[in-house]
């Protein structure tokens, strides 16, 4: 197992696009803004964000904004969507550059996507999913504009997605899934509405997700995967039940998924690495207070010092 190869992971992120073969690069072209968020947050957690030309990043991010609606697309010239708008806001938060943002315009875009029942659509085409409730609430909170939406209705919609096992699905009736649980618990934490969560019941469901190999899975009878080190763990922290899992075993599982030669973290041991799982692995270790890694905020998915700067001006 050994230690976290922090240097190698940082190098992997910095040179990721060069290493990718052509096909892999083109299939992620449309979600490059998500990729930028995963990569930059990982670098910051590893104290390496200084290695990036921040001006270049900021100017590219701003080119992904759709000037008419105020929302951001996954790349320059792409249609705006809440998923990318949150990534854009998170990247600018990371770099302390809200000054380049027309906050009112972005917040208006987000607020307009709220539906009558309190839910959020991801874009003008209307797909509804709790993921978008989280994106909207996280984004507006970071921008200090939560008052632009009907928070009570948003919270009630999320609460209506609670299942018999204490978990949450994407819409009312949808199966509990750790990724959806993160979104719902995160949104409820940000809005101060965690009283809607049955913490003991959900906490037990979440800690049942720890498999024999130490890793966490997203649903019963599914294999463990490094990405759930983030979704499950952050949820457990937000509801104050993280001590119910075996952190040592989980740490070992994540460290076993490292490519120790070329950097990067994969979904499971000996699989191919990618930037998505590298982020989730490092973020998971951060939640478990692994030495050297900066702490990450479980609700905003940003380093704690960034969140403190935004909300407490320090």
């Amino acid at each position: 197992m050994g230690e976290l190869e922090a240097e190698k992971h940082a190098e992997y992120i910095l040179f990721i696009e060069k290493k990718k073969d052509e096909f892999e690069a083109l299939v992620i072209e449309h979600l490059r803004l998500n990729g930028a968020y995963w990569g930059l947050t990982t670098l910051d957690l590893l104290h390496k964000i200084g290695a990036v030309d921040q001006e270049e990043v900021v100017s590219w991010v701003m080119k992904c904004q759709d000037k008419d609606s105020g929302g951001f697309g996954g790349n320059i010239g792409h249609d705006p969507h809440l998923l990318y708008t949150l990534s854009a806001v998170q990247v600018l938060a990371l770099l302390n550059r809200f000054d380049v943002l027309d906050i009112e315009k972005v917040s208006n875009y987000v607020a307009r996507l709220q539906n009558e029942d309190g839910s959020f659509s991801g874009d003008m085409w209307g797909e509804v999913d709790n993921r978008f409730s989280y994106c909207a609430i996280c984004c507006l909170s970071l921008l200090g504009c939560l008052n632009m939406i009907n928070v009570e209705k948003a919270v009630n919609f999320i609460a209506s997605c609670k299942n018999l096992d204490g978990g949450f699905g994407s819409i009312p009736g949808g199966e509990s899934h750790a990724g959806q649980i993160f979104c719902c618990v995160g949104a409820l934490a940000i809005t101060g509405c965690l009283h809607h969560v049955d913490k003991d019941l959900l906490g037990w469901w979440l800690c049942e997700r720890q498999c024999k190999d130490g890793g966490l899975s997203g649903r019963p009878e599914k294999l463990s995967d490094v990405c759930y080190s983030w979704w499950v763990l952050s949820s457990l922290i937000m509801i104050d039940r993280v001590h119910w899992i075996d952190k040592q075993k989980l740490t070992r599982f994540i460290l076993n998924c490292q490519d120790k030669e070329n950097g990067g973290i994969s979904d499971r041991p000996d699989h191919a690495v990618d930037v998505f799982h590298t982020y989730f692995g490092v973020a998971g270790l951060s939640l478990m207070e692994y030495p050297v890694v900066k702490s990450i905020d479980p609700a905003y998915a940003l380093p704690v010092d960034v969140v403190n700067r935004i909300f407490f001006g320090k």
Partner: protein
Amino acid sequence: MSSSSDDEGDRIPFSARPEWSDIRPLPQDDGPNPVAPIAYRDDFRETMDYFRAVYVADERSRRALDLTTEAVRMNPGNYTVWQFRRLVLESLNVDLHGERDFVDKIALQNSKNYQIWHHRRWLSQKLGPEAANNELEFTKQILALDAKNYHAWSHRQWVLQSLGGWENEFRFCCELLEDDSFNNSAWNQRYFVVTRSPLLGGLQAMRDSEVRYTAEAILANPHNESPWRYLRGLYKDNTDQLISDNQVSELCLKVLKANSSYLFALSLLLDLLCYGFQPLEELCTAVKALRNSEPGTADSNLATTVCLILETMDPIRSNYWSWRRSNLPGQVC
């Protein structure tokens, strides 16, 4: 759909197609100094360059539709292409049944792609209730390949609630659970049907038969987490009924005495005790028998004993069980 062959060797570049000669392709603007330059594959780059040109010109034509077909085949995750495709379909007023055949093919190869499922929903909405059976059949096909595909389940629930088709849904859940009793998605769907189907009479009416069904599933596989949770769900918000229904405590007893995997039985018994359940002597004896095989558990009340056994047999969650032990209600047996 000219020149959109799946065999990439036969592909004719747009620059060599006469019907596209009036279009000037528009390359992706990656900014002056791209943060991370991307090396695009040539045919993909060309297709996207032509796509950008018709997209910016907002050209809603037959050839634009064909172009999005090619672009979607190359990268079904590109969501701007799908959005534009919908605009073109709406403008051209084409027969959407053909569109469904196209989406069927793409979706079978990319069954976890958000854009495709969203497009499907848009399409079904346009087609209305007549689409219900087709959509249920299609999701069934996807679920036959991956019984836990979250997108397929979400789509299926949406179809049932928006377009109807509840008639066979309960039987469908039974079939899936017969195939694999560990399929948590199917248990979730069963709960969805029992609580929401307009044809079954609701949770109250179904409870008795559902408890019997679930108990059988548990006895066949006592280590299966899903039916244990389903069983609790059947008594949602009604703990009095949960502790007074003999079926439940008898089930725990049977599993404990069967000497098989009894973790979930103990866990449910613990909940029952915490809700005020008064166990019969036989159940206490069964637990004590387990305790004897777990040395080091002190002589104490039944709930404490249950917790101590769980702490030992489920070490990865021992902190959870010891928390339960230290938080037992005052009057617990």
